[in-house]
């Protein structure tokens, strides 16, 4: 029992891993083609950009907020960097392009963070507003053009693979940017686990007032969160542009809720204070595996959205029901702790 509980993990990572395993085994039995290095590599490739963006969102969600502007920040900073390079005709090299995008992303994040932390406005509403501003500003001041080819250094990266294998089903490639997403996952995991900043995120997400009284500089931390989210999103944006071998300013935008769904599926609480890198990684992978499976089984990929929605209801619903049960066990009405003092006073 103890072992079982430990396996389940703090945020249901265990259950999620189990579901992922069941889907993989089930699919392999149904269609042997599924169980191959090629499939694994292509799933990893497809998961790269959603993974980076989901990790960015995870930071916000742990701190108790919601960000819907991150896809615009991602594509906006990558597109701006590409435009600058192409317009000036000067290719500063890969690190400089990444650096440029990260700086732009960080600045956009700073705008979010400033408005949210300074004026204590609801994060959803603020990022809704800045999403419109960033998107419009990018298209008006940077451009609306679709670039079918990238600066040479980025284009070179598009074709770089870490592993190239020849299997019975043809050649399998593992794209180099998959490593980038793994590196970001590890860095964010370490930040959340071992740094003061990471622990502050959980504290603020759990209870802002409590965090403030514990001596955490709430405003500064919040500002930093959104800057960081902007920077990580920018990396995701550049990765997206590199992998799609073209730069289109209208891409990614509109997919924000899909990414948030993946993070929540990964066990992060939308109220903040809970969530893990492992859960998020599993959530993103599960969605990509299901996407891939649907195609192999011959179900139109249009069902993917419905499947994700259904998973979300099952996952969150199970959590809600079990939370209600445990609340009943300690003899309170289902909101738990908050109600009890009043009850005692009345009686």
């Amino acid at each position, binding site marked *: 029992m103890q072992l079982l509980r430990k396996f389940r993990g703090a945020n249901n990572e265990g259950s999620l891993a189990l579901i992922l395993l069941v889907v993989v085994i089930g699919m392999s039995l149904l269609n042997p083609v599924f169980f191959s290095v090629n499939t694994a590599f292509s799933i990893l490739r497809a998961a790269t950009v959603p993974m980076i963006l989901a990790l960015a969102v995870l930071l916000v969600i742990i701190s108790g907020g*919601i960000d*819907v502007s991150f896809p615009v920040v991602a594509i906006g900073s990558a597109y701006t960097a590409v435009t600058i390079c192409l317009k000036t005709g000067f290719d500063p090299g890969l690190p400089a392009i990444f650096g440029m995008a990260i700086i732009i992303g960080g600045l956009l994040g700073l705008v979010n963070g400033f*408005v949210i*932390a*300074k*004026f*204590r*406005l*609801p994060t*959803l*509403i*603020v990022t*809704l*507003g*800045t*999403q*419109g*501003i*960033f*998107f*419009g*500003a990018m*298209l*008006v001041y940077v451009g*609306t053009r679709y670039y079918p080819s990238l600066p040479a250094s980025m284009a070179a990266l598009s074709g770089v693979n870490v592993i190239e294998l020849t299997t019975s089903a043809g050649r399998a490639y593992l794209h180099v940017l998959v490593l980038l997403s793994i590196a970001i996952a590890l860095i964010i995991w370490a930040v959340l686990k071992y740094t003061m900043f990471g622990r502050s995120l959980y504290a603020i997400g759990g209870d*802002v*007032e409590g965090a*403030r009284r514990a001596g955490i500089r*709430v*405003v*500064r931390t919040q500002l930093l969160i959104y800057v960081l989210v902007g920077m990580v999103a920018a990396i995701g944006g550049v990765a997206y542009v590199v992998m799609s071998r073209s730069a289109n300013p209208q891409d990614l935008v509109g997919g924000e*809720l*899909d990414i*948030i*769904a993946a993070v*929540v599926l990964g066990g992060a609480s*939308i*109220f903040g204070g809970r969530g893990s890198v492992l859960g998020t990684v599993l959530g993103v992978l599960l969605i990509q595996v299901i996407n891939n499976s649907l195609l192999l089984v011959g179900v*139109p990929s*249009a*069902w*993917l*959205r*419905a*499947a*994700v*929605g*259904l998973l*979300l*209801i099952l996952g*969150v*619903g199970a959590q*809600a*029901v079990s*939370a209600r049960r445990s609340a009943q066990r300690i003899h309170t*009405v*289902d909101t738990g702790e*908050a*109600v009890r003092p*009043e009850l005692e006073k009345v009686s």
Partner: protein
Amino acid sequence: MKTEHAQPETGANSFAAMNNRIGRVVADAIGRTLRDRGVSRMLIALLVAFGFFAVMKPQIFLGPINLQNIMVAAPEVGVIAIAMMLAMLTGGIDLSLVSIANLSAVTMSTLFTIMTASSPGLGDSMTIPIVLLGLLVGAACGLLNGLLISLVGITPILATLATMQILNGIAIVWTGGKTLYGAPAALTTFGKTAIGPVPMLFIVFVLVAIVIATVVRSTALGRKLELQGANPVAARFSGIPSRSVLISSYTIGGLLAGLAGVLFLCRNPTASADYGASYVLLVIVIAVLGGTNPNGGFATVAGVVLATLTLQVVSSGFTALRLSPYQYSIAQGVILVVVMILDTIDWSRPKWRKRGVTTDSASLQTTQVGTIKKDKEQE
């Protein structure tokens, strides 16, 4: 908003007395409406926006075609925004509204096409049942939301995020991602008719607004919705059946989304799964601009109607000035953020001055003051 209902049945036979009374009721209703910050603020914004564009480009902006366009385009967004307002009133949010509207439009269009295929003319003669089915689909989806939120206990934002994905997924699969053509001719005609200068669609919008405003303001259900949003714990202790209140709130929201689906078909005899994808976030913007408290407990329909019109005026004004939709997107975001900021500054300024700005943030200080007070009371 309530003036239309204020038909006094006085026994007074003097016309002057009746006139007086109507005047008082109207003045009272207007005064009460204007006292809401959301309403007066949006009224000013609407007048300023209208005046600005009227001065900048009178020949285009004030042309009858442009004004009619504003009134034809506003209803579908406005009705969904009112539905969003209802969800926010109870402290929730409904992300699935646009998906519901599209599913309802797709259902109606498919049914019409099937009927017409089986025998020409059948589809047109069955207009009313088709529309009723569309509304029913909306209400059923809303009921699903309500059940997930109240019975299962899923947070509104997640429950409706999930149903948004599911309903949208169903619509995509159903249509195969294509746009469906076909709608009862009566609907298209209805969308084109106008009483004098006012299109029928706009009249429908105003009627919906009046009905919902009456429900919110003058019925027991409306009061329960407000209390549920203002303080769920207090609501439960005062014996308010939270579950049925939430279920009815989301069901009405779904019904309104179904109606929006009908309005889609009135404007254009086409239906697709991803029509109005930008509406999801736009209606949240409208609801918040209209003075709806996103944390629940406060909302006015009049504010939402005015906010809808303001954004529509700005949108068509930008077109009249030959600005791009992207510039409109900037304006929309700026309006939202600035209005929200002005809102907070208004009430936090005195404390700001008094206490200096050395500590974390202005409004954290208010919470601090609040909690300290509470602590003292407990001692």
